[in-house]
């Protein structure tokens, strides 16, 4: 299948200052710098290819840092959106839940998503599963998502676990694959 036949969107999930930066009692996630660098690589590749780029931000109104208006709510400056890119705010974990993400993707003719961001076990897992179940093929950037230790598992094991299971979910004719950021190809989308 040629690249042109799979219009692609890069979806960067919840990579906000509040998530990435070091705060008292809320340290940076595992391998923060590497994750930001890998997302930066994919953004460059996606933009160069003319893929759709979408940023998702999580609103958690009980946390001031995760509330609109707070500078830490914004997408992390290291990977900030450029003019014309779409930014979607959500309150539920799943980026597709009660947002315009699916109609925006359909409108742009996107059939293939690349997912990355925060947190591996929460919003990245949810968006990746949800996209596949909604009929998109999904590539999970295996080295561009992160989380924190959760008291049961360390962050590196959580990341390895989700990288292992997501590509094995049976979908409705669509599937999930896992690839490293530098290996992911991007195709243009409306």
């Amino acid at each position: 299948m040629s690249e042109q036949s799979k219009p692609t969107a890069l979806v960067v999930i919840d990579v906000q200052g509040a998530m990435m930066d070091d705060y008292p009692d809320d340290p940076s996630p595992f391998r923060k710098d590497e994750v930001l660098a890998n997302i930066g690589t994919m953004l460059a590749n996606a933009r160069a290819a003319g893929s759709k780029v979408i940023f998702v931000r999580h609103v958690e109104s009980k946390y001031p840092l995760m509330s609109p208006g707070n500078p830490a709510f914004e997408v992390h400056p290291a990977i900030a959106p450029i003019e014309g890119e779409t930014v979607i705010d959500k309150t539920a974990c799943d980026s597709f839940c009660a947002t315009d993400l699916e109609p925006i993707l359909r409108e742009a003719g996107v059939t293939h998503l690349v997912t990355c961001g925060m947190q591996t076990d929460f919003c990245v897992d949810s968006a990746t599963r949800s996209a596949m179940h909604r009929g998109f093929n999904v590539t999970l950037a295996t080295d561009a998502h992160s989380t924190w230790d959760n008291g049961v598992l360390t962050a590196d094991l959580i990341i390895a676990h989700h990288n292992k299971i997501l590509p094995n979910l049976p979908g409705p004719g669509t599937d999930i694959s896992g690839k490293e950021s530098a290996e992911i190809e991007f195709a243009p989308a409306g």
Partner: protein
Amino acid sequence: MAEQASKLPTALLVIDVQEAMFGPGQQPPVFWAEETVANIAALLAEARSAGARVIYVQHHDQVDLAMQPGQPGFAIRAAIAPEPGETVIVKRICDTFTGTNLEHVLRQAGIQRLVTCGIQSDFCVDAATRGAMNRGFSVTLASDAHTTWDNGVLTAEQIIAHVNATLPNMSGPGQRIRIKSTQKIEFGSANVR
């Protein structure tokens, strides 16, 4: 709060507890197989006596020949087989809500709360639990009534603990997922409308 939720019209969703999951065959039985089945049996007894709706989900696998309709491995585990009149929904996709009429069945019956259990913790149980929450249902995951296999990265026991630790911390459009052990789960009758 918890007591209020447990009075909502409830359905017990028993996911993919099929004979093929218990060997013998290409794979060993799921972890904690007998304990999990015993806990699901306890949930079923409680749900039935409370008048909750009982719904079984069966996975028709796209690849695994043992999990095709007509094969012995496809059948729901005999120890917890459905009773006459209980609903069985066959799915081919991980998320029980995708490509099935489950949501329609639940809405028609006025169900507002689901209790989830079954196999596999990290695949279809996780997907159904997230899926139900995202559709606005109140959901309780039975912490000791779902299981899986080791996956090369984590042991089954670690995976179960990870799912139990993760799902209750997830934001949905409404209530968060609750997690409780089988003995502490109450069921609301589905017959009051």
